């Protein structure tokens, strides 16, 4: 911990950012900001139990070492329970790791797929391509911040 003076220790909470492809973050944090569908929510330790939807955007975590970590996240869920914060999303990518060129290529690919699915009248393909495009756009946006 950063200090030993009684009463001034930092409050902290456990944060787990999970994706189906594996945990993206698992550690202690002093603050978390996530994009809920009803606006951004900031979570500090001792937050009241909360469960919310997340939209595609960026999730920012301030760790106990006062380090700021930013993830580009897709749609998902946020749950806060007794200083245990769970973020469940389909994809989470650390902002520092985003490869602009690759994200750009993914965006173009998604747009091509979208046009293709629309031309073929393929509803399932269209929905998939649309969410792929949204994810790619989000990655680019987060990378640019």
């Amino acid at each position: 911990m950063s200090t030993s003076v009684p009463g001034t220790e930092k409050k902290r909470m456990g944060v787990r950012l999970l994706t189906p492809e594996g945990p993206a973050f698992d550690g202690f944090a002093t603050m978390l900001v996530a994009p809920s569908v009803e606006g951004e929510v900031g979570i500090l330790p001792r937050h009241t139990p909360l469960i919310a939807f997340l939209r595609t955007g960026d999730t920012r975590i301030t760790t106990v070492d006062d380090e700021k970590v930013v993830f580009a996240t897709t749609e998902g869920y946020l749950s806060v329970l007794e200083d245990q914060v769970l973020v469940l999303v389909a994809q989470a990518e650390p902002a520092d790791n985003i490869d602009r060129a690759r994200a750009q290529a993914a965006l173009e690919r998604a747009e091509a797929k979208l046009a293709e699915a629309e031309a073929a009248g393929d509803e399932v393909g269209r929905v998939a391509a649309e969410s792929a495009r949204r994810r790619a756009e989000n990655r680019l946006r987060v990378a640019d911040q």
Partner: protein
Amino acid sequence: MPSQRDIKRRIDSVRNTRKITRAMELVASAKLRRAQERIESLRPYAQAMRRLMAQAARQSGSLTSLPLLEERGEAARASIVAITGDRGLAGAFNVNILRAGFAAEAEMRGDGVGDVVYTAVGKKGAGTLNFRGLTVDRIFQGFSTEPTYADAQQVTEHLVRGFTEGHFDRVLVVYNAFKSVLEQRVTVERLLPIERELVEDEQEHDPLVESRALALFEPDPDIFLSKLLPTFLDTTIYRALLESAAAEHAARRNAMHSATDNAGSLISDLTLAMNRARQASITQEILEVVAGADALV
């Protein structure tokens, strides 16, 4: 009787085949390990998801209004999702799935389901189903050995759409569950309508869930649950795809392992035959020389 040269040629050919099957076995083992790791990395997410769902179900109170849970009394149409591999050379891996699918179809037809369509995941299954002239409403392929979550989402999207639009009243998933490196178990699961007990699942009695007060839902639990269910299905399908991928690698590894063994015993049989042939020809030649010498005396 084949000549020594013929046998030698066969031995060389079998030896080359053994090289290939051994390489395939090694590749499959390496991929199997990775596939197992991916199943492991899904686990925390899946558990958290189940817990969240149970909590939402508890607080929402009524599950009756959710379309994905709706039991349609007279199920007239059903879909069977057959998860097979894109490639063969994996023993009975693909055949087992189709066989279980056909059995499930027969059973449902016995129950009065008139219309059964297949959704094929994997090229092999699609090929056989088409060949048999069965109705295949959609084919997903190209990701059997390395499925991603996005692939699973696409499959789910198709199924959920079909279910809510009334194209089918029931959806079964047939896949190879990965039990161990030596065992794949063909599993038939009902995907839709979602079984109530799965949603209300209370068996996970962790103290964290039990002790706390009601959580604030944003938006309210009912809406939350109706959005969470498709994600739950995504996770279920993703899990099935991952298990199937691991099972495919395991099946291929085993098939290639026995192929390598068989090639080995074939080689030793052929070597024996070749030695016999050589011995026979040597004996033959000695006899001829001796007979020739005798004739001169």
